[in-house]
């Protein structure tokens, strides 16, 4: 009788342990996948905001001499005081 119980109990215990192990590993696998996805989502960050334009004299913004206002209106990215291309020395 005892032998019969132990014969059926051992595989059951083993099966439960195996299932628990699978669930345990699966949980980590899911967590790993989620963190990878989060890493991907958070990794692509936009470029930095442009630096502040410089001071303006008491003559004000009107006129060709006002560099900050010219930079603010320029069509050309090179004259707009935007972040430089990374390879640019």
């Amino acid at each position, binding site marked *: 009788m005892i032998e019969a119980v132990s014969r059926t109990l051992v595989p059951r215990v083993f099966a439960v342990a195996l299932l628990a192990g699978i669930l345990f590993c699966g949980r980590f696998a899911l967590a790993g996948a989620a963190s*990878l996805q989060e*890493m*991907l989502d958070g*990794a*692509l*960050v*936009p*470029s930095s*905001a*442009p*630096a*502040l*334009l*410089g*001071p*303006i*004299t*008491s*003559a*004000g*913004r*009107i006129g060709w001499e*006002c560099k*900050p*206002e010219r*930079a*603010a*209106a*320029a*069509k*050309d*990215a*090179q*004259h*707009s*005081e*935007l*972040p*430089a*291309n*990374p*390879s*640019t020395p």
Partner: protein
Amino acid sequence: MRVLLLAALLVELMATSGPAQTYAPSTPLPRTTSVPALRAFANAREVEERFRIGLDAETRGDWKGAVAEFDRIVVLNPPEPKGSTAQYDLALAYANLQRNDDAARALRAAIARDPEFLAAMANLIAVDLARGDLPEARRIADRYVTLAPDSARALYSRGIVALQAGDATTAREDFGKLLHANPSYAVAHYDLALAEERLGRFDAAQRELNTALALAPAYARARFALGVVLLRQGEHAAARSAFARATADAAGDPALKNIAAAMRDSIKVP
């Protein structure tokens, strides 16, 4: 003979004598006994002097000194364009002291006095991004683009605000327009790629990133983004290679270097 000599002398005199010298009229001095008029003259003089001292302070990086000068000009309330300009310069000093809320307030005042002050709008957007005030940054960026639709800085600024706020469609439009006039601007190709990636247009994102990298081969952030896009497309080997290259190129950016290395190592290629 004497007549000839006299004639020659007269001709010589006429040739050497220039027109009568003229003198500029003397600068009119304020001649008044009116107290308000005298006060106005004194204020105008003080404003000019404080502008000179404040700008010198900003050139030296003495931002506290600059705040004191421009703050006083604001109190004196000079007419335009000096009033809005003083607010603008005051904001610049505040921003450099990391007092971004004060900087934003001064820039709002500058724009209220001069509603087409583009440099003030450009700086307010940058300050708002630093403060994390995306709604105001977007309002000002919309106004900036309306006033200067071809301005590279207006398009770039609104594109960045839109990307940060999750509006990939506006970002795509703005960076696309910016690149139409500036096709060799690698940074805008990168940001356009981000907008395309968020819209699920991975082929377009990959194309923009390849263009950015052709223009700037050591652009580590673009290389990393290319790895992400390739990974989303299931191209694991190519993605791993891109992350490996990004790890090497990101020497000056430890955070990017670490995440690129982690991504590279997380991809198992047979």
